[in-house]
């Protein structure tokens, strides 16, 4: 009788404990990673390679995403606003949605799929084939050599990607606005500038830095703790993408609350 009543309680307790333990492990991993980002030596060569890998090679994906998002935004908001004769707000809606929300979130999600997965697979394979152990025996700290360059590169490059995404997104809106919806070019650009404030762009860039950290952190963490064998690496890759995507959405809400409440 008592036991049947207590069973769900026990399950809830167990799940909570497991969850807290996982949070604890992740935090300690993140702490170590950050520590090695700021304490020299820093491997510049590796950092540079990651900047190229994470930043430069993500440009096409992020650019395309931003372009089409900007275009769709213009179309959708136009049909919406024309119902109450507020077509003039289209440019403003495009630029505010892009800078504050869509550029950082979509860039974050795209990079989570592209980079989070590849980081987890690469580090996971290194774990499984004992390359991480080999690093240690060659007097090289794996956190410094593998984790720190990726975390730094993530935090630096995502804001840059988002800035590029902002511009391309606005450009997408402009194309649709001018060539499909019949706005005058000067008019559209003026509406874009008029209500834009520094905080709109800056908040988006700060979000991007946080997302960049989350994506690289989850990739590194899952790869580093990968299970044995090809199956372990596969699971690490999936977990990295899923967990970083969810964290991006959660932190997006938290950060938006912080900036605009």
């Amino acid at each position, binding site marked *: 009788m008592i036991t049947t009543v207590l069973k769900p309680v026990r399950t809830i307790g167990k799940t909570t404990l497991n969850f807290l333990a996982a949070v604890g492990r992740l935090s300690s991993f993140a702490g170590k990673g950050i520590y090695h980002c700021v304490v020299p030596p820093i491997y510049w060569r590796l950092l540079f390679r990651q900047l190229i890998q994470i930043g430069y090679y993500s440009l096409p994906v992020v650019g395309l995403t931003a372009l089409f998002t900007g275009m769709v935004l213009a179309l959708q908001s136009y049909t919406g606003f024309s119902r109450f004769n507020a077509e003039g707000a289209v440019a403003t809606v495009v630029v505010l949605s892009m800078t504050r929300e869509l550029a950082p979130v979509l860039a974050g999600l795209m990079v989570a799929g592209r980079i989070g997965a590849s980081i987890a697979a*690469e580090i996971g394979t290194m774990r499984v*084939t*004992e*390359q991480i*152990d*080999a690093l*240690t*025996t*060659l*007097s090289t700290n794996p956190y410094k050599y593998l984790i720190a360059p990726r975390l730094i590169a993530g935090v630096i490059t995502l804001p840059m990607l988002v800035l590029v995404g902002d511009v391309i997104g606005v450009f997408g809106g402009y194309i649709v606005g001018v060539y499909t919806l019949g706005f005058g070019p000067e008019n559209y650009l003026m509406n874009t500038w008029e209500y834009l404030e520094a905080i709109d762009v800056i908040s988006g860039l700060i979000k991007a830095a946080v997302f960049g950290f989350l994506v690289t952190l989850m990739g590194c963490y899952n790869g580093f703790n990968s299970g044995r064998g090809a199956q372990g690496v596969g699971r690490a890759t999936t977990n990295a993408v899923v967990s970083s995507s969810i964290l991006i959405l959660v932190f997006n809400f938290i950060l938006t609350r912080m900036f605009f409440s």
Partner: protein
Amino acid sequence: MQQYKLRLHNVHKSFGSNRVLRGASLDIKKGESVVIIGGSGTGKSVLLKCVLGLIMPDRGEITVDGQNITFLPVHKRDNFMHKFGMLFQGGALFDSLPIWENVAFGLLQKHNYSRKDAYDVAIEKLRSVGLGERVAQLFPAELSGGMQKRVSLARAIATNPEIIFFDEPTTGLDPIMADVINDLIVKATKELGATTLTITHDMASARKIADDIAMIYDGKIIWRGSAKKIENSGNEYVDQFIHGRADGPIALAV
């Protein structure tokens, strides 16, 4: 008083319910070459990893040059790690780096070599394992298994460590190349004065490189003696193992 380079005393390690090491003890003198033999899955590789701190033993004591390092976490081992060289059973080459950088890795990281000097040392070490300069710019995935093993060996000895672990150095090599590697290990011990611990299933290799041979069974070192005496060990486990007989006291783990 004997000068022990490396001592393992009563080392235990389990993975869940799998009790791998159950009180392994082994003392190795400076400049000595010891070979460990034993069945597959008996914990030979785990034993080496316990010494290196890659796996934390549950219990026991491991000392290097008289200092207890048993439970020293990896990040506090900076003063010890440079003493060690390790050839991993699977090679564990860094597949994002070209061969020469793999070999020179230790030199580039800690020994403040310029890239040019490190390259020269790497080429020299590659020669000593029978590989020419033309592999230097290739990547590990472009080499055959045996070649990878030899690169891995070159990496393990590149920094002239005091203690070198070889985990199955000749597995997967043709007999001639195996003998080249045997000579190399003998040379490392005799000329550079390194202390070496080698795991092998290859009895010809064991006879050639070992001062002493130790047999691991059931998580313990059950026999240890001079390589010359291995034929007359008087131990039926050792007899069965070195003659490769299916019947005997060693039960096949199924």
